[in-house]
């Protein structure tokens, strides 16, 4: 018996509705976040991630209310990301019932924010969310990925592997790694990227972006060396249930919580 690899359904929420886009564009409505979170909890999901994809100041009150409603129904860990820019945002989400917060662009603008957040709330609740895309290889021929912002439109010039290492050294307790190339394509995780980050840091890594079938989840763990696998549309649109995903992973020799 060992630690189970986690399966994490992800709710991308826009104005109080779960949506799913392809490469962050082309939105499709998937339903009410509280109902969906409850369904995944009942199916035996190991954790739930809630991403406020618009994260406007005006929409914040709705988001907080939705997180509160989910937390009252769901007794597994809940991570909330999107628009986490200030220490007060973290406190608001933790008070609403989140267990962890995902920090993304705020860390790029001010890396010390992650340090301050980890010192204040503990590394266990600070997840560094990294959106990366493959770019031309390094001079030595090795693959290179860069951090992108603004839904994958804006390159930052920051090397994804170096960034993950730096954020972990600043106190991030987990990495949520999204391949912007893969997101919404259903072509599978970027396994080389996932493996490179997982081997570079000592904290758990969640693979995200591109899941289209159950073999992709298996590949994320076995080839990508991910500690957890995140997926959205395969669960939202009932292509697969969480128990089906777990049973399939178990059949491939992966330790899961059944």
């Amino acid at each position, binding site marked *: 018996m060992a*630690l189970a690899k986690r399966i994490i359904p992800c709710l991308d929420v826009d104005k109080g509705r779960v949506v799913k886009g392809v490469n962050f564009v082309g939105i499709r409505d998937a339903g009410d976040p509280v109902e969906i979170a409850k369904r995944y909890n009942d199916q035996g999901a*190991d954790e739930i991630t809630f991403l406020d994809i618009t994260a406007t100041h005006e929409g914040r009150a709705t988001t907080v209310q939705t997180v509160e409603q989910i937390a*009252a129904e769901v*007794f*597994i860990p809940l991570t909330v990301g999107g628009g986490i820019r200030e220490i007060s945002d973290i406190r608001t989400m933790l008070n609403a*019932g989140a267990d962890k917060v995902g920090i993304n662009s705020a860390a790029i603008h001010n890396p010390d924010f992650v340090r301050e957040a980890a010192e204040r709330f*503990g590394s266990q609740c600070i997840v560094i969310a990294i959106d990366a895309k493959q770019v031309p290889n390094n001079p030595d021929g090795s693959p290179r990925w860069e951090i992108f912002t603004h839904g994958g439109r804006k390159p930052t010039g920051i090397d994804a592997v170096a960034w993950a290492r730096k954020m972990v050294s600043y106190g991030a307790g987990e990495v949520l790694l999204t391949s912007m190339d893969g997101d919404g394509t259903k072509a599978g995780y970027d396994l080389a990227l996932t493996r490179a980050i997982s081997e570079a840091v*000592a904290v758990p890594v969640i693979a995200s972006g591109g899941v289209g079938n159950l073999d992709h989840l298996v590949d994320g763990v076995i080839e990508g060396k991910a500690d957890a696998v995140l997926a959205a549309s395969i669960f939202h649109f009932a292509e697969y249930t969480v128990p089906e995903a777990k049973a399939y992973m178990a059949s491939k020799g992966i330790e899961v919580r059944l």
Partner: protein
Amino acid sequence: MTKSTVAVIDYGMGNLHSVASALHKVGDGVTVQVTDDPDTILAADRVIFPGVGAIRDCMAELKARGLDELVQEVSATKPMLGICVGMQALMESSEENGGVACLDVLPGQVKFFGADLRDGGGERLKVPHMGWNTVKQSYEHPLWEGIADNSRFYFVHSYYIDAPEFVAATAEYGVEIHAALHCENVFAVQFHPEKSGDAGLRLLSNFLRWDGGQAVFRPVS
């Protein structure tokens, strides 16, 4: 279930919402008070001592609020459930933050997993120990009632308990973790029952019906 009160000790260390929310879910009619008020804690029938974050900050906050001696006192007088860093604070001392003296309610130390933790097959293990691990019950206990042996619970911690006695459950993560301890009125768990799905809710429900005292030292069948 008796109509009773349970105090969740709030000493500024992290999010107690989920503990209170889980108690509301299972505690039919139980009054849940999230509080740092000594009189409220002393008047409660049961006490939950949670905690997240670094042990130095936890101990400093407890002392600043005058709650360190209160926790020691109520641990001897009423059923208490320590959770995660709350459990760690009940031990003699912790290696975290360069060594911190704790409340010495339970014998044993809190140790670091180490920077190069490996499983039996030599695979590197990530620290923190984060996720769902199996918990092996050491003996039958009212708090394990209705929970299958080797059920999975949610853990998230970088330091683990090494206790010489009173071990109520173990888990494996590179080393043997003492995942639960029980001594008289105190039951303490390293994992988060409030985040451990049905098994965790059952443990909290069992706690709300537990009156403390000794376990039945029968091996788990």
